[in-house]
Structures are given as structure tokens and as C-alpha cells.
């Protein structure tokens, strides 16, 4: 047992006192994700939202008085404050499409001649409904905004004037969506976090495990270790334990950056609830993360033991990375649903399912226990294999 701790201490010292390693493995991935998501979020936000004080330039042709003398039930006031109408500019021969393409107008609305009479006739079933044409430019954010505003307004006007026998969802004092913001956040997290966590854990494990196993072989320091009286199993367990700690640290730090960057990424599209999960949930999550990291580290170490160099080890590990990403993506399609218990017997997939359940605020405790046990058992078998490989001169000294 003391041999395991000696190796663990050395490995942890190697990682946590190496500034270059700390920056590249612990800080940089998360920082990059944070910066990337923030920039992407800002860019997307700028692309799809219009400044609050922006005044839409709307060209109106035909029976434009309609919007002004509407009843108070429709947000005419809003229309007045957010739009500036240009009846003169567009009246006549100007091509509305050209005006929109050149950005001279955001929207161009054409009411037919005698619109009011035709509309009244259609309400009374005297004539077919008149057609209102709303021209816009979908490439321009402001034009999209103006289009949404005006079409919504017209639909409300149409509804109002037809005087339906009932209305739908018009009482502003009531909430009609049964989903609480907590549920929405949980659903959102349960779809995204399993993929992020498993992928980032794997990335952290890959960086340290290839370096620790293949790197030591490549540099000739593994032989120095193998000549000591330490048991091969102690070397293997010591390395796996230390690498798991570093992989979890890397995964957690990077995930922290991801979580911090999500609100920026989503740009208010979703309300982030931060107090969704209990201490118990975090303990369960910790169990799953640690057992998952052990599996990753063990598998990567086994592959690294076959490799002659870090570069070769990374090439061997790449297909496994693809598998991890693909399995991580399955959480996107299950929407937090729990699966049958036997799925928890499948390493990697069980971790994704367990994390999905935890983030959906519906943790499957039995599933998580099975996941942890299965992962630890798989890692145990892997460490046994690694010990055997360390005993093989063909593997260690080829």
C-alpha cells in the first residue's frame, strides 16, 4: 500500500508543481471554452437582437390609417414608439425590394386599396379577406424584428376585429406554461452537461495519462521505476489513482468555466437557476465523475502502455475520444429520461445516463450505485492488465 502512495505523491507533485502542465491541462481548456462561448454568445446575441431604443423604419402603402385608429386593445402605442412610417418615400414607383436590400427601410407593408371596407366585408362574409403584403429582409436583424412586430400586430388586429367568441391566453395575470424555470434549467443542464463533463474529463485524462505512461516509456524513466522493488501493481495503482485525481480536477475546473460561460452563450434565451441541486446530488455526481475518470484513465493508460511515444499514444486514444463524444451526445436525445437498470452495466454509457439523471434533478440512485461499482470493477480489471503489461518486456522495452 505504501508503494501506491509513494507513486501517487510523485505523480501528483509532477502535475501540481509544473506550471506549464497546470496551465495547459487545468486552466487553458476551460479558459478557452469560456472565451469562445462568450464571444460566440455575444456574436449570436448581436445577430438576433435589436437595441431596445432602435426605431424601425417601416414603409406603409395603401390604407395605412388602419394602424392609427385601432382600438386600445392592441399595442398601437408600442407601434408608435418603435416605428417611424414613411408613406411618402414608398408611395409611387420605388421598388420595395430594393429599398429593403439597400437598408433604406426595415419593412414595407402594402395594404390594398379600400382595405377597411374590404376587411369589414370579409368579417360579414360579403367578400373574401383582403391581402396585406409585408415585405422584409431576413438577412437583417432589424428587418426581422420589424417583421415580427408588425405581423404580430396585424394578427391581433385581425383577431380583434373578427370578434371571436373566445380568446386564448390573453390574461396577463396568469401563467400558462406549466414548466417552472427550474425545470427548464434542469432539462437544459441534463441535455448539455453529460456531454461536456464526459468529454472534458476525457480530455483531462488523455493529457495526463499519455504523458505519465507513454511519456515515461519514451524518456526512459519507466525503466528506472521498474528496477525498484515496487510491485508492478503498486506502480499501476499509484499512477491510476494520481491520474484520476488530476483528470477530475481538470474536468471540474473546465466544467466550471463552461457553466460560467453558458449564460453568456445563451444570451438570456433561458433563465439559469443556480440552486437546482442538493448536496446529495453533488455527492452522487462526484461518485459518478470519479468512477468515470478512473475508467478513462485506465483505458488511456492501457493504450499508452502499448505506445512507444506520447504522440503514438495520442493517436491510439483518438478513436476512443470519438466514442466518448458520441456516447455523450446521447444525452441530447433522451431529455433526462432514465433508462432500464441493465444499461448501467455498460461503462461510459452508464456515466452519461447517471449524469443526465442527476442534472435532470431525477437521480436514479440504484443506477448510480451500479454505475460506480461497474466502473470501479472495470478499472480494477484494467489496472490488473496494466500491471501485467508492465511485467512484459515486449511491451515496456520494445
Amino acid at each position, binding site marked *: 500500500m*505504501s*508503494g501506491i502512495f*509513494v507513486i501517487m505523491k*510523485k505523480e501528483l*507533485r*509532477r502535475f501540481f508543481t*509544473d506550471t506549464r502542465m497546470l496551465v495547459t491541462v487545468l486552466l487553458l481548456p476551460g479558459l478557452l471554452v469560456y472565451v469562445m462561448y462568450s464571444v460566440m454568445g455575444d456574436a449570436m446575441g448581436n445577430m438576433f437582437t435589436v437595441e431596445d431604443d432602435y426605431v424601425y423604419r417601416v414603409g406603409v402603402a395603401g390604407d395605412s390609417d388602419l394602424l392609427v385608429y385601432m382600438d386600445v386593445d392592441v399595442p398601437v402605442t408600442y407601434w408608435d414608439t418603435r416605428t417611424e412610417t414613411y408613406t411618402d418615400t414608398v408611395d409611387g414607383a420605388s421598388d420595395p425590394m430594393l429599398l429593403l436590400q439597400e437598408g433604406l427601410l426595415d419593412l414595407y407593408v402594402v395594404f390594398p386599396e379600400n382595405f377597411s371596407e374590404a376587411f369589414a366585408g370579409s368579417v360579414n362574409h360579403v367578400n373574401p379577406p383582403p391581402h396585406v403584403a409585408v415585405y422584409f429582409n431576413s438577412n437583417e436583424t432589424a428587418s426581422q424584428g420589424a417583421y415580427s412586430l408588425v405581423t404580430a400586430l396585424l394578427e391581433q388586429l385581425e383577431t380583434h376585429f373578427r370578434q371571436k367568441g373566445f380568446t386564448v391566453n390573453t390574461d396577463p395575470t396568469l401563467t400558462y406554461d406549466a414548466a417552472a424555470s427550474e425545470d427548464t434549467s434542469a432539462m437544459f443542464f441534463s441535455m448539455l452537461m453529460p456531454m461536456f463533463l464526459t468529454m472534458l474529463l476525457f480530455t483531462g485524462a488523455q493529457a495526463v495519462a499519455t504523458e505519465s505512461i507513454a511519456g*515515461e516509456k519514451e*524518456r*526512459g*524513466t519507466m*525503466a*528506472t521505476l*521498474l*528496477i*525498484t*522493488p*515496487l*510491485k508492478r501493481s503498486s506502480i499501476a495503482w499509484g499512477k491510476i489513482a494520481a491520474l484520476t485525481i488530476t483528470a477530475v480536477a481538470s474536468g471540474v475546473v473546465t466544467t466550471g468555466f463552461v457553466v460560467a460561460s453558458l449564460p453568456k452563450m445563451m444570451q438570456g434565451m433561458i433563465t439559469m437557476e443556480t440552486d437546482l441541486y442538493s448536496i446529495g446530488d453533488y455527492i452522487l455526481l462526484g461518485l459518478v465523475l470519479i468512477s468515470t475518470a478512473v475508467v478513462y484513465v485506465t483505458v488511456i493508460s492501457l493504450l499508452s502502455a502499448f505506445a512507444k511515444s506520447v504522440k503514438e499514444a495520442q493517436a491510439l486514444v483518438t478513436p476512443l475520444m470519438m466514442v466518448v463524444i458520441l456516447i455523450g451526445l446521447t444525452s441530447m436525445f433522451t431529455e433526462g429520461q432514465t433508462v432500464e437498470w441493465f444499461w448501467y452495466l455498460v461503462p461510459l454509457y452508464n456515466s452519461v445516463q447517471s449524469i443526465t439523471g442527476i442534472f435532470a434533478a431525477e437521480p436514479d440512485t440504484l443506477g448510480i450505485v451500479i454505475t460506480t461499482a461497474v466502473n470501479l470493477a472495470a478499472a480494477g480489471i484494467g489496472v490488473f492488465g496494466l500491471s501485467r503489461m508492465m511485467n512484459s*518486456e515486449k511491451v515496456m*522495452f520494445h
Partner: protein
Amino acid sequence: MSDILIVQNLSKSFRLSAKQQKLENTNEKVRRAVRDLSFTVKEGEIFGLLGPNGAGKTTTLRMIATLIKPDAGDALLDGASVVKEPEKVRQKIGFLTSELKLEEFFTPDYLFDFFSEVHGIPKDVRNARKKDLFARFGIDAFAQVKASGLSTGMKQKTSLAISVAHDPSVIIFDEPTNGLDVITARTVTDFLLDLRRDGKTIVLSTHIFSLVEKLCDRVGILIDGGLTACGELSEICGGMSLEDRFFDYYYAAKGEEKR
């Protein structure tokens, strides 16, 4: 003096890859690196394995040091079998070879502590031994410098100190002065003589005649994986220089006329 190392019919073969076959212009698929090798080393002596490159010296030492397993035969080191009790053997030996490297990230000070801990040396004993060895090799001056910043000589001195950190009874050195400057080489040879004076047993491999003449009590001449001669230096030389006697054995083993 009793035999502390008994090598019994050790054999080792390596499979040659297609690339190696091409490189060496040969059709043989298996290379017999060591053939049926037997010799003994007495407690407290310096025993040298002398031979040209590719004679099987390093392979023999690696088998004795338990880094690789023999295909056949065994070696008993202070009663422990290298085949059946490799961990016991590793406890008793210090092994130094150029293929064993220091982790570049760590300092000599840390590496000495680490390998002492691996061998289960108590802290007070370790510190006293570190003080003694570091002073002897002049490591104190660079004890806190990472190995990546050390010269080849400094690294070799550090490796030497680490290899005897646990005060082993048998020390195995593969080409101990290879690639060293004259000053460091002298430090190493002086240290080996001191170790013998302290009653330690040393097994070394070399192709340098003068080193064998200076250090070894007994010598084994290894050619093409087989032991051609083994005995006390005076016995082997028979009044001739070691170099002349070596080439007698060499050409006889190769079945060639002496040039």
C-alpha cells in the same frame, strides 16, 4: 569468500523485426543474444564482463537486474532467484545503466528522496546518506536544479548516488564510464573502488580494457552471447596484456586467424 551471484545457464533470444533484418543484412529471424551463460561472482569483488558491442553484456546485466526475463536458466542473487523472486532481487541490487533516465522535471534532491522512499529507507538514514553521497559527488551545488538543466556528467553523478541510495549489497553497472568526461569518469571509478573497500560486490560490463585492468578482480570474456573465458585477471592474461589475450579469445571464438 562465498558466491553472492550464481548465474546458471542463462539464455536469451530476441526476434528481429523485418526492419532490423534489413538493417543488419541478415535473414535470421531470431537473434540469440545470450547463450547458456554460467558464471559466479564472489562477495566483495569487482567482476567485469568484457566484450565487444553486441556480445550480450547488457542483456546479461538486464536479466540479472530483472528488467527482462531469461528464456532459460536462472540467476541467484544472494539466494534470490531473478525468475521467481524478482522483487527480492531488486531490493538487494543497485543498477546503473545509460538507458535508465532521470525524470527531467525533478531535482536531484527530490529524486534521491523519492527512490529512498521507494526502497523504504527511514528519513533520518536517508538524510544522512544523502548528505554523504551528495558531498562526495559534489551534487550539493546543483541539488535543487531540475535534471533538465544538468549536464551529462551531473546527471550521471546523480544517477550514481540514486542507484546506491538504499545501500545495496550488489551493484550492477552497465558501461559505467561511457560518455563521461575524464573528471566524471575518474569520480565513478574511484567510487567503485571505495564500494569494494566497503565490502560491496560490483558487476560491471565494459569494452574498455584499461577499466577492467584497473578495477576488476575477475573477468568474464563474452563473445557472441557465450562466455569464452572467465577467471581472475592474472589467470586470464597469463602474462600478456588483457587486450592481446582478449583478441586471442575473440578470433578463436570467431574461428578466424589472428590478424
